[in-house]
Protein backbone atom coordinates (compact mmCIF):
# COMPACT_ATOMS: atom_id res chain seq x y z
CA UNK A 1 0.00 0.00 0.00
CA UNK A 2 1.05 3.67 -0.01
CA UNK A 3 -0.24 6.93 1.36
CA UNK A 4 -0.03 10.38 -0.22
CA UNK A 5 3.03 12.58 0.46
CA UNK A 6 2.94 13.77 4.12
CA UNK A 7 0.25 11.12 4.75
CA UNK A 8 -2.74 13.46 4.96
CA UNK A 9 -5.64 12.03 6.97
CA UNK A 10 -8.84 13.24 8.58
CA UNK A 11 -8.56 14.66 12.10
CA UNK A 12 -12.13 13.68 12.93
CA UNK A 13 -13.28 10.07 12.94
CA UNK A 14 -16.93 10.87 12.23
CA UNK A 15 -17.03 11.94 8.62
CA UNK A 16 -19.93 13.37 6.65
CA UNK A 17 -20.54 12.81 2.96
CA UNK A 18 -22.93 14.35 0.48
CA UNK A 19 -24.13 12.99 -2.84
CA UNK A 20 -24.17 16.11 -5.01
CA UNK A 21 -25.92 14.53 -8.00
CA UNK A 22 -26.95 11.13 -9.36
CA UNK A 23 -26.02 9.03 -12.37
CA UNK A 24 -28.98 8.33 -14.66
CA UNK A 25 -27.66 4.76 -15.06
CA UNK A 26 -29.02 3.65 -11.69
CA UNK A 27 -32.06 4.30 -9.53
CA UNK A 28 -31.10 6.89 -6.88
CA UNK A 29 -31.67 4.31 -4.17
CA UNK A 30 -29.15 1.97 -5.86
CA UNK A 31 -26.58 4.76 -6.06
CA UNK A 32 -27.09 5.56 -2.39
CA UNK A 33 -26.82 1.87 -1.45
CA UNK A 34 -23.62 1.38 -3.46
CA UNK A 35 -22.00 4.43 -1.85
CA UNK A 36 -23.09 3.45 1.64
CA UNK A 37 -21.72 -0.06 1.14
CA UNK A 38 -18.48 1.37 -0.24
CA UNK A 39 -17.96 3.45 2.92
CA UNK A 40 -18.77 0.42 5.04
CA UNK A 41 -15.82 -1.42 3.50
CA UNK A 42 -13.58 1.12 5.31
CA UNK A 43 -15.64 1.72 8.45
CA UNK A 44 -15.53 -2.01 9.16
CA UNK A 45 -11.78 -1.99 9.57
CA UNK A 46 -11.22 1.43 11.20
CA UNK A 47 -12.77 3.62 13.95
CA UNK A 48 -14.24 5.85 11.20
CA UNK A 49 -17.98 6.40 10.81
CA UNK A 50 -19.69 7.92 7.74
CA UNK A 51 -22.93 9.85 7.83
CA UNK A 52 -24.80 11.07 4.78
CA UNK A 53 -25.81 14.76 4.96
CA UNK A 54 -27.48 17.16 2.57
CA UNK A 55 -25.94 20.33 3.94
CA UNK A 56 -22.80 22.13 2.86
CA UNK A 57 -20.76 20.86 5.79
CA UNK A 58 -19.85 17.58 4.13
CA UNK A 59 -16.23 16.45 4.29
CA UNK A 60 -16.53 14.18 1.23
CA UNK A 61 -18.62 15.35 -1.74
CA UNK A 62 -19.55 12.79 -4.37
CA UNK A 63 -20.48 13.81 -7.91
CA UNK A 64 -20.90 12.44 -11.42
CA UNK A 65 -19.55 14.49 -14.33
CA UNK A 66 -18.16 14.14 -17.86
CA UNK A 67 -15.07 15.61 -19.51
CA UNK A 68 -13.92 18.92 -17.97
CA UNK A 69 -15.67 19.35 -14.65
CA UNK A 70 -13.92 22.19 -12.85
CA UNK A 71 -10.71 20.57 -11.66
CA UNK A 72 -7.41 19.85 -13.40
CA UNK A 73 -8.26 16.25 -14.21
CA UNK A 74 -10.78 16.17 -17.04
CA UNK A 75 -12.45 12.84 -17.75
CA UNK A 76 -11.85 11.09 -21.04
CA UNK A 77 -15.11 9.60 -22.32
CA UNK A 78 -16.09 5.94 -22.01
CA UNK A 79 -13.38 3.57 -20.67
CA UNK A 80 -9.80 4.36 -19.53
CA UNK A 81 -10.22 6.75 -16.58
CA UNK A 82 -13.34 5.81 -14.59
CA UNK A 83 -13.12 8.14 -11.59
CA UNK A 84 -10.75 9.98 -9.27
CA UNK A 85 -10.73 11.33 -5.74
CA UNK A 86 -8.67 13.72 -3.64
CA UNK A 87 -6.76 13.04 -0.42
CA UNK A 88 -8.12 14.35 2.88
CA UNK A 89 -8.16 18.15 3.21
CA UNK A 90 -10.29 21.28 2.97
CA UNK A 91 -12.34 22.23 -0.07
CA UNK A 92 -11.89 19.65 -2.81
CA UNK A 93 -9.98 17.45 -0.34
CA UNK A 94 -11.72 14.07 0.06
CA UNK A 95 -14.10 14.67 -2.85
CA UNK A 96 -14.77 11.82 -5.29
CA UNK A 97 -15.71 12.38 -8.96
CA UNK A 98 -17.15 9.64 -11.20
CA UNK A 99 -17.03 9.83 -14.99
CA UNK A 100 -20.64 10.03 -16.21
CA UNK A 101 -19.52 8.83 -19.64
CA UNK A 102 -19.14 5.37 -18.08
CA UNK A 103 -22.08 3.05 -17.52
CA UNK A 104 -22.50 2.60 -13.78
CA UNK A 105 -24.01 -0.70 -12.67
CA UNK A 106 -24.83 -2.72 -9.58
CA UNK A 107 -23.79 -6.06 -11.10
CA UNK A 108 -20.82 -7.59 -12.91
CA UNK A 109 -21.28 -5.57 -16.10
CA UNK A 110 -18.90 -2.65 -16.39
CA UNK A 111 -18.55 -0.74 -14.24
CA UNK A 112 -19.76 -1.71 -10.81
CA UNK A 113 -20.29 1.53 -8.88
CA UNK A 114 -19.72 -0.05 -5.46
CA UNK A 115 -16.25 -1.35 -6.41
CA UNK A 116 -15.07 1.90 -8.00
CA UNK A 117 -16.50 3.96 -5.13
CA UNK A 118 -14.79 1.77 -2.52
CA UNK A 119 -11.48 2.34 -4.31
CA UNK A 120 -12.01 6.12 -4.63
CA UNK A 121 -13.03 6.43 -0.98
CA UNK A 122 -9.71 4.82 -0.14
CA UNK A 123 -8.13 7.90 -1.73
CA UNK A 124 -10.61 10.20 0.07
CA UNK A 125 -9.35 8.71 3.33
CA UNK A 126 -5.65 9.05 2.45
CA UNK A 127 -4.59 5.86 0.66
CA UNK A 128 -2.66 6.13 -2.59
CA UNK A 129 -2.32 3.33 -5.13
CA UNK A 130 -1.07 -0.12 -4.24
CA UNK A 131 1.15 -2.31 -6.39
CA UNK A 132 -0.44 -5.45 -5.05
CA UNK A 133 -2.73 -6.98 -7.66
CA UNK A 134 -5.84 -8.18 -5.88
CA UNK A 135 -5.87 -5.26 -3.46
CA UNK A 136 -8.70 -2.72 -3.68
CA UNK A 137 -6.23 0.14 -4.10
CA UNK A 138 -4.65 -1.40 -7.20
CA UNK A 139 -5.21 1.22 -9.93
CA UNK A 140 -6.78 -1.06 -12.54
CA UNK A 141 -10.49 -1.99 -12.35
CA UNK A 142 -11.07 -5.66 -11.56
CA UNK A 143 -14.59 -7.01 -11.05
CA UNK A 144 -15.21 -8.98 -7.87
CA UNK A 145 -18.54 -10.12 -6.53
CA UNK A 146 -19.67 -7.29 -4.20
CA UNK A 147 -21.87 -9.65 -2.19
CA UNK A 148 -18.96 -11.06 -0.26
CA UNK A 149 -16.37 -8.41 -0.93
CA UNK A 150 -13.31 -8.65 1.31
CA UNK A 151 -10.45 -6.19 1.60
CA UNK A 152 -6.98 -7.63 1.07
CA UNK A 153 -4.51 -7.57 3.92
CA UNK A 154 -2.62 -4.86 2.02
CA UNK A 155 -5.65 -2.53 2.08
CA UNK A 156 -6.34 -3.24 5.76
CA UNK A 157 -2.71 -2.61 6.73
CA UNK A 158 -2.74 0.65 4.76
CA UNK A 159 -5.90 2.14 6.23
CA UNK A 160 -5.09 0.99 9.76
CA UNK A 161 -1.68 2.59 9.39
CA UNK A 162 -3.61 5.88 9.10
CA UNK A 163 -6.54 5.37 11.48
CA UNK A 164 -5.89 2.24 13.55
CA UNK A 165 -8.24 -0.75 13.99
CA UNK A 166 -11.96 -0.42 14.67
CA UNK A 167 -12.97 0.53 18.22
CA UNK A 168 -16.69 0.04 17.59
CA UNK A 169 -17.83 -3.52 17.14
CA UNK A 170 -19.21 -3.47 13.67
CA UNK A 171 -22.60 -5.12 13.94
CA UNK A 172 -23.00 -6.87 10.64
CA UNK A 173 -19.89 -6.23 8.58
CA UNK A 174 -20.76 -6.03 4.90
CA UNK A 175 -17.16 -7.07 4.52
CA UNK A 176 -15.30 -9.44 6.72
CA UNK A 177 -12.86 -7.61 8.93
CA UNK A 178 -10.70 -10.64 9.31
CA UNK A 179 -7.91 -10.09 6.80
CA UNK A 180 -8.07 -12.46 3.91
CA UNK A 181 -4.83 -14.06 4.68
CA UNK A 182 -2.58 -13.59 7.68
CA UNK A 183 0.77 -14.95 6.64
CA UNK A 184 1.12 -17.03 9.75
CA UNK A 185 4.31 -18.74 10.73
CA UNK A 186 2.70 -21.98 9.56
CA UNK A 187 2.07 -20.71 6.08
CA UNK A 188 5.59 -19.37 5.87
CA UNK A 189 6.90 -22.66 7.22
CA UNK A 190 4.49 -24.29 4.75
CA UNK A 191 6.39 -22.89 1.80
CA UNK A 192 9.68 -24.14 3.21
CA UNK A 193 8.41 -27.57 4.10
CA UNK A 194 10.90 -29.96 2.43
CA UNK A 195 7.98 -32.28 1.62
CA UNK A 196 5.95 -29.54 -0.09
CA UNK A 197 4.16 -30.63 -3.26
CA UNK A 198 2.23 -28.51 -5.77
CA UNK A 199 -1.06 -29.01 -7.59
CA UNK A 200 -0.07 -26.86 -10.59
CA UNK A 201 2.61 -24.34 -11.61
CA UNK A 202 2.57 -21.75 -14.39
CA UNK A 203 4.19 -18.52 -15.44
CA UNK A 204 1.99 -15.42 -15.71
CA UNK A 205 3.25 -12.12 -17.10
CA UNK A 206 6.76 -12.72 -15.86
CA UNK A 207 5.74 -14.13 -12.48
CA UNK A 208 5.75 -17.82 -11.53
CA UNK A 209 2.64 -19.08 -9.74
CA UNK A 210 2.73 -22.19 -7.56
CA UNK A 211 -0.78 -23.49 -6.80
CA UNK A 212 -1.58 -25.54 -3.68
CA UNK A 213 -5.17 -26.15 -2.52
CA UNK A 214 -6.82 -22.73 -2.00
CA UNK A 215 -3.55 -20.83 -2.17
CA UNK A 216 -1.05 -19.62 -4.73
CA UNK A 217 2.55 -18.63 -3.99
CA UNK A 218 3.77 -15.91 -6.37
CA UNK A 219 7.41 -15.34 -7.26
CA UNK A 220 8.08 -12.11 -9.15
CA UNK A 221 11.37 -10.91 -10.65
CA UNK A 222 10.45 -7.39 -9.59
CA UNK A 223 9.60 -7.87 -5.95
CA UNK A 224 11.64 -9.58 -3.25
CA UNK A 225 10.18 -12.50 -1.37
CA UNK A 226 7.27 -14.76 -2.11
CA UNK A 227 3.68 -13.56 -1.81
CA UNK A 228 0.96 -15.99 -0.82
CA UNK A 229 -2.58 -15.22 -1.95
CA UNK A 230 -5.89 -16.98 -1.83
CA UNK A 231 -6.83 -18.05 -5.34
CA UNK A 232 -10.24 -16.52 -4.66
CA UNK A 233 -8.67 -13.09 -4.10
CA UNK A 234 -7.28 -13.16 -7.65
CA UNK A 235 -10.12 -14.95 -9.45
CA UNK A 236 -13.17 -14.77 -7.17
CA UNK A 237 -15.42 -16.68 -9.56
CA UNK A 238 -13.06 -19.61 -10.12
CA UNK A 239 -12.84 -22.74 -7.95
CA UNK A 240 -9.61 -23.50 -6.07
CA UNK A 241 -7.49 -26.63 -6.18
CA UNK A 242 -6.46 -26.57 -9.82
CA UNK A 243 -5.04 -29.73 -11.39
CA UNK A 244 -2.92 -28.04 -14.07
CA UNK A 245 -2.04 -24.65 -15.54
CA UNK A 246 0.03 -23.26 -18.42
CA UNK A 247 0.75 -19.93 -20.11
CA UNK A 248 1.04 -19.00 -23.77
CA UNK A 249 2.92 -15.82 -23.10
CA UNK A 250 2.81 -14.44 -26.64
CA UNK A 251 -0.98 -14.41 -26.31
CA UNK A 252 -0.87 -13.27 -22.67
CA UNK A 253 -3.14 -16.24 -21.92
CA UNK A 254 -3.09 -18.67 -19.02
CA UNK A 255 -5.19 -21.86 -19.02
CA UNK A 256 -6.36 -23.33 -15.71
CA UNK A 257 -7.67 -26.90 -15.39
CA UNK A 258 -9.83 -28.54 -12.74
CA UNK A 259 -11.54 -31.88 -13.26
CA UNK A 260 -13.01 -32.01 -16.76
CA UNK A 261 -13.23 -28.22 -17.06
CA UNK A 262 -10.77 -25.51 -18.04
CA UNK A 263 -10.69 -21.71 -18.15
CA UNK A 264 -8.68 -19.20 -20.19
CA UNK A 265 -7.63 -16.05 -18.32
CA UNK A 266 -5.78 -12.83 -19.12
CA UNK A 267 -4.41 -11.44 -15.88
CA UNK A 268 -7.49 -11.26 -13.66
CA UNK A 269 -10.00 -11.47 -16.49
CA UNK A 270 -11.67 -14.75 -17.34
CA UNK A 271 -12.17 -15.02 -21.08
CA UNK A 272 -15.77 -15.25 -22.26
CA UNK A 273 -17.08 -18.71 -23.21
CA UNK A 274 -15.25 -20.52 -20.41
CA UNK A 275 -15.22 -22.94 -18.67
CA UNK A 276 -15.03 -25.48 -21.48
CA UNK A 277 -14.88 -29.28 -21.27
CA UNK A 278 -11.39 -30.73 -21.63
CA UNK A 279 -12.66 -33.23 -24.19
CA UNK A 280 -13.11 -30.34 -26.63
CA UNK A 281 -9.30 -30.37 -26.83
CA UNK A 282 -9.36 -33.89 -28.24
CA UNK A 283 -8.79 -36.10 -25.21
CA UNK A 284 -10.34 -39.56 -25.32
CA UNK A 285 -13.33 -40.14 -23.11
CA UNK A 286 -11.45 -42.13 -20.48
CA UNK A 287 -9.48 -38.98 -19.51
CA UNK A 288 -11.26 -37.53 -16.50
CA UNK A 289 -8.71 -34.89 -15.49
CA UNK A 290 -5.27 -33.51 -16.33
CA UNK A 291 -2.33 -33.92 -13.94
CA UNK A 292 -0.10 -31.22 -15.46
CA UNK A 293 0.41 -29.09 -18.58
CA UNK A 294 3.25 -27.09 -20.09
CA UNK A 295 3.57 -25.06 -23.29
CA UNK A 296 6.73 -25.49 -25.37
CA UNK A 297 7.65 -22.15 -26.99
CA UNK A 298 9.96 -23.90 -29.46
CA UNK A 299 7.48 -26.36 -30.92
CA UNK A 300 4.28 -24.39 -30.20
CA UNK A 301 2.96 -27.57 -28.61
CA UNK A 302 1.32 -27.98 -25.23
CA UNK A 303 2.10 -31.23 -23.42
CA UNK A 304 -0.68 -32.59 -21.19
CA UNK A 305 0.27 -35.17 -18.59
CA UNK A 306 -2.34 -37.78 -17.65
CA UNK A 307 -1.25 -40.61 -15.36
CA UNK A 308 1.82 -42.24 -16.92
CA UNK A 309 1.24 -40.86 -20.39
CA UNK A 310 1.35 -37.47 -22.10
CA UNK A 311 -0.48 -35.88 -25.02
CA UNK A 312 0.79 -33.23 -27.45
CA UNK A 313 -1.58 -30.42 -28.49
CA UNK A 314 -0.74 -28.31 -31.52
CA UNK A 315 -1.53 -24.72 -30.51
CA UNK A 316 -1.28 -23.56 -34.12
CA UNK A 317 -3.79 -26.01 -35.60
CA UNK A 318 -5.60 -26.16 -32.25
CA UNK A 319 -5.75 -29.95 -32.40
CA UNK A 320 -4.35 -32.95 -30.55
CA UNK A 321 -1.46 -34.54 -32.40
CA UNK A 322 -1.63 -38.04 -33.83
CA UNK A 323 0.46 -40.79 -32.26
CA UNK A 324 -0.40 -39.71 -28.73
CA UNK A 325 -0.66 -40.41 -25.88
CA UNK A 326 2.89 -41.67 -25.41
CA UNK A 327 4.62 -42.96 -22.25
CA UNK A 328 6.28 -40.20 -20.23
CA UNK A 329 9.14 -42.55 -19.32
CA UNK A 330 9.93 -43.20 -23.01
CA UNK A 331 10.30 -39.56 -24.10
CA UNK A 332 11.41 -38.00 -20.82
CA UNK A 333 13.88 -40.56 -19.50
CA UNK A 334 14.48 -40.62 -15.76
CA UNK A 335 11.07 -39.04 -15.25
CA UNK A 336 9.65 -42.49 -14.88
CA UNK A 337 6.31 -41.65 -13.28
CA UNK A 338 3.45 -39.24 -13.12
CA UNK A 339 3.96 -35.46 -13.34
CA UNK A 340 2.05 -33.36 -10.76
CA UNK A 341 2.87 -29.96 -12.26
CA UNK A 342 5.07 -28.43 -14.97
CA UNK A 343 6.22 -25.11 -16.34
CA UNK A 344 8.82 -23.75 -18.74
CA UNK A 345 11.45 -21.14 -17.88
CA UNK A 346 14.56 -19.96 -19.76
CA UNK A 347 14.60 -22.92 -22.13
CA UNK A 348 14.06 -25.58 -19.48
CA UNK A 349 11.05 -27.61 -18.46
CA UNK A 350 10.46 -28.09 -14.76
CA UNK A 351 8.45 -31.22 -13.99
CA UNK A 352 7.23 -31.66 -10.43
CA UNK A 353 6.59 -35.03 -8.85
CA UNK A 354 5.98 -35.13 -5.12
CA UNK A 355 8.60 -33.09 -3.27
CA UNK A 356 11.03 -33.25 -6.21
CA UNK A 357 11.31 -31.44 -9.49
CA UNK A 358 13.24 -32.28 -12.66
CA UNK A 359 15.00 -29.60 -14.72
CA UNK A 360 14.83 -30.79 -18.33
CA UNK A 361 16.42 -29.35 -21.46
CA UNK A 362 13.46 -28.54 -23.71
CA UNK A 363 15.35 -29.57 -26.86
CA UNK A 364 17.18 -32.73 -25.82
CA UNK A 365 14.59 -33.62 -23.16
CA UNK A 366 17.48 -34.74 -20.96
CA UNK A 367 17.16 -34.34 -17.18
CA UNK A 368 19.77 -31.73 -16.16
CA UNK A 369 19.13 -31.61 -12.41
CA UNK A 370 16.80 -32.99 -9.77
CA UNK A 371 15.90 -30.50 -7.00
CA UNK A 372 13.41 -30.03 -4.18
CA UNK A 373 10.08 -28.72 -5.42
CA UNK A 374 10.31 -25.52 -3.38
CA UNK A 375 13.85 -24.55 -4.33
CA UNK A 376 12.30 -21.43 -5.92
CA UNK A 377 11.38 -20.04 -2.50
CA UNK A 378 14.99 -19.48 -1.37
CA UNK A 379 14.26 -21.11 1.97
Amino acid at each position, binding site marked *: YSTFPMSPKWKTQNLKYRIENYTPDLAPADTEAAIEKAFKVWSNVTPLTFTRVNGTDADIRISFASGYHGDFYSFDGPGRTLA*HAYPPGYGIGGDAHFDEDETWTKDSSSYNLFLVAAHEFGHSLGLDHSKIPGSLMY*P*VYVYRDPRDYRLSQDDISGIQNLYGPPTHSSTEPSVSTTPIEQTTETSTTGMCDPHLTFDAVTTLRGETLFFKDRYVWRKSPHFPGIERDLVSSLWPTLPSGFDAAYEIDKKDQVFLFKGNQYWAIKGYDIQPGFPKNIHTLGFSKHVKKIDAAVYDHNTKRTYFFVDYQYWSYNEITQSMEKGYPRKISVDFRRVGHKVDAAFQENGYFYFFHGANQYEIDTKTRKVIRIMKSNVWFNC
Partner: protein
Amino acid sequence: FPIAPETEKENEDLLLAKKYLQKFFNLGKEERPAFKRKSLNPVTDKIREMQAFYGLEVTGDLNFKTVEVMKQPRCGIPDVRQ
Protein backbone atom coordinates in the same frame (compact mmCIF):
# COMPACT_ATOMS: atom_id res chain seq x y z
CA PHE B 1 2.44 6.00 -49.67
CA PRO B 2 0.20 5.49 -46.60
CA ILE B 3 2.34 4.25 -43.76
CA ALA B 4 2.20 0.50 -43.20
CA PRO B 5 -0.61 -0.50 -40.81
CA GLU B 6 1.81 -1.87 -38.26
CA THR B 7 3.71 1.43 -38.26
CA GLU B 8 0.43 3.25 -37.84
CA LYS B 9 -0.44 0.90 -34.98
CA GLU B 10 2.97 1.49 -33.41
CA ASN B 11 2.45 5.26 -33.63
CA GLU B 12 -0.97 4.93 -32.06
CA ASP B 13 0.46 2.83 -29.24
CA LEU B 14 3.29 5.30 -28.69
CA LEU B 15 0.82 8.20 -28.52
CA LEU B 16 -1.36 6.25 -26.08
CA ALA B 17 1.70 5.40 -24.00
CA LYS B 18 2.92 8.99 -23.81
CA LYS B 19 -0.50 10.22 -22.68
CA TYR B 20 -0.70 7.40 -20.12
CA LEU B 21 2.79 8.02 -18.77
CA GLN B 22 2.21 11.79 -18.58
CA LYS B 23 -1.03 11.22 -16.68
CA PHE B 24 0.03 8.45 -14.33
CA PHE B 25 3.82 8.41 -14.19
CA ASN B 26 4.74 12.11 -14.36
CA LEU B 27 6.40 11.88 -17.77
CA GLY B 28 7.72 15.36 -18.57
CA LYS B 29 6.63 16.89 -15.26
CA GLU B 30 9.76 16.35 -13.18
CA GLU B 31 11.30 19.80 -12.67
CA ARG B 32 14.64 18.44 -11.56
CA PRO B 33 15.14 14.83 -12.73
CA ALA B 34 16.33 12.76 -9.80
CA PHE B 35 20.09 12.59 -9.66
CA LYS B 36 20.86 9.58 -11.86
CA ARG B 37 22.52 8.82 -15.14
CA LYS B 38 21.29 11.25 -17.81
CA SER B 39 18.34 9.52 -19.32
CA LEU B 40 18.75 8.88 -23.01
CA ASN B 41 15.06 8.53 -23.42
CA PRO B 42 12.65 9.61 -20.68
CA VAL B 43 9.82 7.67 -22.30
CA THR B 44 11.81 4.42 -22.10
CA ASP B 45 12.61 5.15 -18.46
CA LYS B 46 8.97 5.78 -17.66
CA ILE B 47 7.91 2.62 -19.49
CA ARG B 48 10.34 0.72 -17.26
CA GLU B 49 8.89 2.41 -14.18
CA MET B 50 5.35 1.50 -15.23
CA GLN B 51 6.32 -2.11 -16.07
CA ALA B 52 7.91 -2.51 -12.63
CA PHE B 53 4.80 -1.08 -10.94
CA TYR B 54 2.55 -3.55 -12.75
CA GLY B 55 4.81 -6.54 -12.32
CA LEU B 56 5.48 -6.79 -16.06
CA GLU B 57 8.83 -7.80 -17.51
CA VAL B 58 10.92 -4.61 -17.23
CA THR B 59 12.22 -4.10 -20.76
CA GLY B 60 11.55 -0.45 -21.54
CA ASP B 61 9.90 -1.71 -24.74
CA LEU B 62 6.33 -0.83 -25.55
CA ASN B 63 5.39 -4.49 -25.97
CA PHE B 64 1.94 -6.06 -26.29
CA LYS B 65 1.40 -6.71 -22.59
CA THR B 66 2.49 -3.20 -21.59
CA VAL B 67 0.07 -1.60 -24.07
CA GLU B 68 -2.67 -3.96 -22.86
CA VAL B 69 -2.26 -2.78 -19.26
CA MET B 70 -2.26 0.86 -20.41
CA LYS B 71 -5.63 0.29 -22.09
CA GLN B 72 -7.32 -1.17 -19.05
CA PRO B 73 -10.04 0.83 -17.24
CA ARG B 74 -8.61 2.39 -14.12
CA CYS B 75 -8.62 5.15 -11.50
CA GLY B 76 -7.59 8.60 -12.68
CA ILE B 77 -5.17 9.25 -9.81
CA PRO B 78 -1.46 9.05 -10.79
CA ASP B 79 0.49 5.94 -9.75
CA VAL B 80 3.58 7.81 -8.68
CA ARG B 81 3.99 11.02 -6.71
CA GLN B 82 6.06 14.02 -7.68
